[in-house]
């Protein structure tokens, strides 16, 4: 990318602000997800309310950043790397907001399970593991954005396969459980929803990473076969 500054220092400021707002939003989403996972594994139902409320902040940031993008396009008509950055950011915030929604879904799922008097801890290890992986993906995708590091973004994209595989194995485990003891069905389905939300977080992290590759290299690698996603620079 381009480190040289614009003739218009205001334009530089605006782009800089936009980037830091995205990182701020990303940080908030990360916190939401780890709080939701903690709520799950430690049974902290009290934090569910906080997570659900904080989701509104994530939504507000999405709207504010999109609005800034629209203003910047109208005022500055960005081109080349600037255009890719603004366009990419507008897409990244959509994925971040949806990842935030998934955190909220996890939190609500946790509340349902505990309110039904169940303890999900017997499946805790599998979920905890896949959630850690998804969280690392998101963190690295945001790092890749902050440093405009396409190679790291490609690593994130590749990691999504592992999360998907693990999700499938959790599904199989839970199906076995349900068949063995139908009384676990309600809880198992709630846990499946949670696992599904975690898996979706991985997908959103992957999308963010794909947008980063577009921002840095100008290549749109969405929907490409895996071998074509390698960084070319």
């Amino acid at each position, binding site marked *: 990318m381009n480190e*040289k500054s614009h003739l218009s220092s205001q334009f530089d400021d605006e782009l800089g602000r936009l980037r830091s707002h995205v990182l701020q939003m990303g940080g908030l989403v990360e916190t939401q997800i780890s709080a939701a996972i903690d709520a799950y594994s430690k049974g902290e139902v009290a934090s569910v309310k906080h997570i659900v409320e904080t989701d509104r902040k994530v939504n507000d940031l999405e709207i504010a950043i999109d609005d800034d993008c629209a203003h910047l396009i109208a005022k500055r008509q960005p*081109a*080349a*790397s600037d255009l*890719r950055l603004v366009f990419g950011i507008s897409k990244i915030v959509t994925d971040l907001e949806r990842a935030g929604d998934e955190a909220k879904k996890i939190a609500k799922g946790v509340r349902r399970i505990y309110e039904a008097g169940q303890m999900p801890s017997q499946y805790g290890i599998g979920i905890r593991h896949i959630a850690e992986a998804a969280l690392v993906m998101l963190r690295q995708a945001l790092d890749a954005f902050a440093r405009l590091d396409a190679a790291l973004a490609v690593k994130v994209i590749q990691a999504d396969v592992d999360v998907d595989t693990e999700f499938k194995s959790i599904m199989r485990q839970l199906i076995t459980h349900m068949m063995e003891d139908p009384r676990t069905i309600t809880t198992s389905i709630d846990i499946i929803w949670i696992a599904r939300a975690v898996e979706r977080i991985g997908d959103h992290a992957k999308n963010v990473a794909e947008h980063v590759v577009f921002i840095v290299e100008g290549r749109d690698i969405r929907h490409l076969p895996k071998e074509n996603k390698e960084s070319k620079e």
Partner: protein
Amino acid sequence: MSNHETPVLKAEARGLNFYYGEAQALKNINMPIYDKKVTALIGPSGCGKSTYLRSFNRMHDLYPGNRYEGEIRFFPDNTNLLGSDVDPIEVRMRVGMVFQKPNPFPKTIFENVAYGLRVRGENNKRVLEDKVEHALKSAAIWEEVKNRLQDQAPNLSGGQQQRLCIARALATDPELLLFDEPTSALDPIATGAIEELVHELKKRVTILIVTHNMQQAARVSDYTAYMFLGEMIEFGKTDQIFIKPQDKRTEDYITGRMG
């Protein structure tokens, strides 16, 4: 947006150098101009884009001390436009030019457009009337002037004058039209009309346009060339140049990081 047809060459600069006396203004330019496409030349002031544009209709011949090296091949006949055996008048019949400021002759609207045809020796009134009407229609100004063809051209508005100049250039059925910042003296509405016209014209004629307005280059052209200090830095599809230029210098220029 993308079209996959293979473009046909209309002209090609090969190893083109140009000197204003001792000063070299163009340095080894190699660049294709594709048939019935719009090619935009962008670059900071003094980069040689107007010099390059003017080479196509031998405008530099008018001043002593100017010197070309290399060639500009013109197709399909593969003529070297810069060849010493090629008559500049003939070149200008095939390569029309529209300038930055509208420059109608101090004559009637009709005579402005008929001028090139008369120079060519056309005196048949019917033919002249037909060709003038056709040119004015092609330049999207017919409806505005059809009832006052005998009015003085300089009385038209700036935007109309510029379209009249385009009609004048079109009257001789050129194969290539050169535009040297055709809208820099016009308001946004008149600019929009010219840009729309460029889009219409490329169905029939190849267009090479110099513009300082980068957004205009992005809007009207199929190909864009970035020039800097007399060199062709980058040539490519306009979509490519404005989304992912290959050269850092192009990137710096179009993102406003020059200086």
